[in-house]
C-alpha cells in the first residue's frame, strides 16, 4: 500500500515536471520574435553581419562616388564663375564701346561758336570724323553722345539734330582719347581748324586732363536685324 502511494506520488510529480517543461517551451516559442537579434543563432548572426558588411561597403562606394561628383560640380561651378566674371567684364567693355556708360579720361574740348547760324551739320560731321581718325574713344556734342546710330542732320537750316534732339550753338564737342593725337588731328596744316577759320567760323579748343562724357540715354534696338547663324 505504502509502496503504491509513493509510486503514485512519483508518477504524478514526473507528470507535473513533464507538462511544466512542455508548457514553458510552448510559451517560449510562442512569445519569441525570431527576427529579433537577441534570439538569433550564431550562424544567422554571422550571415546577417556579412550581409550588413556588404551593404555598408556598397553604400560607402556610393558615398565616395557622390563625393567625387560633388567635387566635380564644385570645380565646374568655379569655372563657370570665372567665365561669368570674364563675360561680365566683356559686357562692361562692350557697353563702354557702345556708349552706354559714363566715361572719364583725358581729352580735348572744342567749342564752335555759332554766329549767324554759320555752323552746319557738315562741320560737325567732319569734326567727328577727324576726331575718330585721331583715335577718339568717346565723343559728345552738347552732351549728346555720339554712338553708332547717331545722326547729325540739319533741320531746315534752323537747328542741327543729334540723336533725335535739336541742338543749337554754341557747340561744345568733347572727345576722350590721346590728347596729342586729338590735338594734332584738328590742328594740321590746312586741317580742320584752318579750314574753319578760313571760312570765318569761330573755333577754339582746350586740352583737359579730365573730361566726363555721359552715357547715351536712348535705346539701340534691332528690329529688322538678327544674327546670321
Amino acid at each position, binding site marked *: 500500500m505504502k509502496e503504491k502511494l509513493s509510486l503514485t506520488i512519483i508518477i504524478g510529480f514526473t507528470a507535473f515536471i513533464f507538462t511544466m*517543461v512542455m508548457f514553458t517551451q510552448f510559451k517560449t516559442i510562442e512569445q519569441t520574435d525570431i527576427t529579433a537579434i537577441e534570439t538569433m543563432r550564431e550562424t544567422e548572426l554571422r550571415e546577417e553581419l556579412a550581409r550588413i558588411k556588404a551593404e555598408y561597403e556598397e553604400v560607402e562606394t556610393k558615398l565616395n562616388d557622390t563625393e567625387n561628383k560633388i567635387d566635380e560640380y564644385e570645380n565646374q561651378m568655379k569655372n563657370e564663375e570665372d567665365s561669368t566674371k570674364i563675360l561680365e567684364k566683356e559686357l562692361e567693355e562692350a557697353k563702354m564701346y557702345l556708349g552706354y556708360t559714363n566715361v572719364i579720361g583725358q581729352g580735348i574740348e572744342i567749342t564752335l561758336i555759332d554766329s549767324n547760324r554759320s555752323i552746319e551739320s557738315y562741320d560737325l560731321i567732319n569734326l567727328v570724323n577727324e576726331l575718330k581718325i585721331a583715335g577718339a574713344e568717346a565723343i559728345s556734342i552738347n552732351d549728346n553722345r555720339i554712338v553708332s546710330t547717331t545722326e547729325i542732320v540739319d533741320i531746315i537750316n534752323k537747328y542741327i539734330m543729334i540723336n533725335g534732339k535739336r541742338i543749337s550753338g554754341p557747340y561744345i564737342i568733347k572727345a576722350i582719347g590721346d590728347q596729342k593725337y586729338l590735338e594734332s588731328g584738328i590742328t594740321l596744316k590746312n586741317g580742320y581748324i584752318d579750314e574753319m577759320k578760313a571760312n570765318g567760323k569761330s573755333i577754339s579748343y582746350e586740352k583737359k586732363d579730365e573730361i566726363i562724357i555721359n552715357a547715351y540715354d536712348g535705346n539701340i534696338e534691332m528690329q529688322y536685324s538678327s544674327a546670321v547663324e
Partner: protein
Amino acid sequence: MLYLTIILGCILGAIVGMRGPIIPYTYSSYLAIAIIAAMDSVFGGISAVIKKNFDLKIFLSGFFGNAILSILLTYLGEKLNVDIYLAAIIVFVGRMFMNLGVIRRYYVEKWFGKISKRSNEENTKN
C-alpha cells in the same frame, strides 16, 4: 488513484508552466530535445506497463537521464559543429513510434477480443 494523480500533475504543470518565466530562445532548442527524450520515456513506460515489466527506477532514470543526456549531446554537437540533436530526434521519435505501435496493438487486440468474446458468449447462449 494513479490516473487522478497523473491528471492532477499535468494540470498543475500546465498552470505553472504558463505562469512561469520564459527561457532564452538559444536554450529552447536544448529544452525541445529534453522534451522529446522525456516523451520517449513516457511512451516507453506505458508500453512497459502493457508488457507488465514496468520498473519505476528504470522509468525515472530513463526520463531524467535521457533528457539530461540529450541536452549534453546537443551541446557537444554544437561545440563540434555537428548536428547531433538530429540523431537524438531520430532515435527518440523512432522509439516513440515503436512503443506507440505496441500500445496500439495491445488496445486493438483487447477491443476486438472483447467483441469476439461477447459474440462467442451469445453464440453459446443460443
